[in-house]
């Protein structure tokens, strides 16, 4: 029984490690910022996820207690990863892309990032002379 658990936990750790490496490799390999954004938001989620499951299983089987911290890490990861990704995408739209690069919205209004009517969150983080 313990042997099977050990093998399972090791397998989870190795799988997690492989996915984390692939995610980092993607950062190096892909061409532009928007493509690189995909590697860390996804390929690493499974990396962290399987490491956390391995940790929970280890504490449950070998120490005999349930550890909840891993669930919290998962929750915080799922809450923060999409927000970070959107922030990076928006920063990229401001600094390196122009409105002409984007498809039209199809409803008559601008994308919020380029719409002069939408108020900026904090003027200090935005380029004083926006490229238009």
């Amino acid at each position, binding site marked *: 029984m313990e042997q099977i658990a050990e093998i399972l936990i090791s397998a989870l750790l190795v799988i997690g490690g492989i996915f984390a490496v692939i995610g980092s*490799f*993607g950062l190096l390999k892909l061409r532009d910022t*928007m*493509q690189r954004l995909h590697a860390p*938001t996804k390929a690493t989620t499974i990396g962290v996820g399987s490491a956390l499951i391995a940790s929970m299983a280890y504490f449950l089987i070998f120490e005999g207690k349930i550890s909840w*911290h891993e669930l919290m890490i998962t929750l915080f990861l*799922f809450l923060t990863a999409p927000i970070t990704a959107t922030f990076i*995408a928006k920063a990229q739209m401001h600094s390196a892309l122009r409105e002409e690069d984007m498809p039209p919205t*199809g409803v008559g209004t601008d994308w919020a990032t380029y*719409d002069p009517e939408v108020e900026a969150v904090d003027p200090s983080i935005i380029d004083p002379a926006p490229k238009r």
Partner: protein
Amino acid sequence: MFKRLFPHPLLSFLLFVTWMLLVNQIKLGSMVMALILAIAIPLLTAPYWPNRPLVRNIPAFAAYVLLVIWDIILANIQVARIILFYRNDQIRSAWIPVPIELKTPEAITMLAGTITMTPGTVTADMSSCGKVLLIHSLHAPDPDAIRDEIKTRYEARLKRIFE
């Protein structure tokens, strides 16, 4: 009285459980601390919560969470395959505008978060009227198929949950 103390019962409950899980053991002292946080934080942040998010259909919400977790696993494998086995000039990235029918901010946030976590797509922006999401797809040979999948697989379910 209850309503005065707990303007957002669900948020209070979530804070209480979160604190207990962070402490990682059940002791009276940490329960008191959790209770203080569960009362203080909703009161302090109440001005930023004009309306309560309403989850109308809790079983459907649980099913949605499971579906998204399954899709995240598939997404990881798919993105890993694209990174490893596609040459850079074979990867066709695209910006895709996705018109949405959801109205409540909570539902739209859930949809945007789901899109970012699942197969090869990241939510980048929204039209200033809030009716279209701008999505960047890592590998999109057929942008229309991706848009239709988002609408049928996620948006339809969220519409049933929140609206």
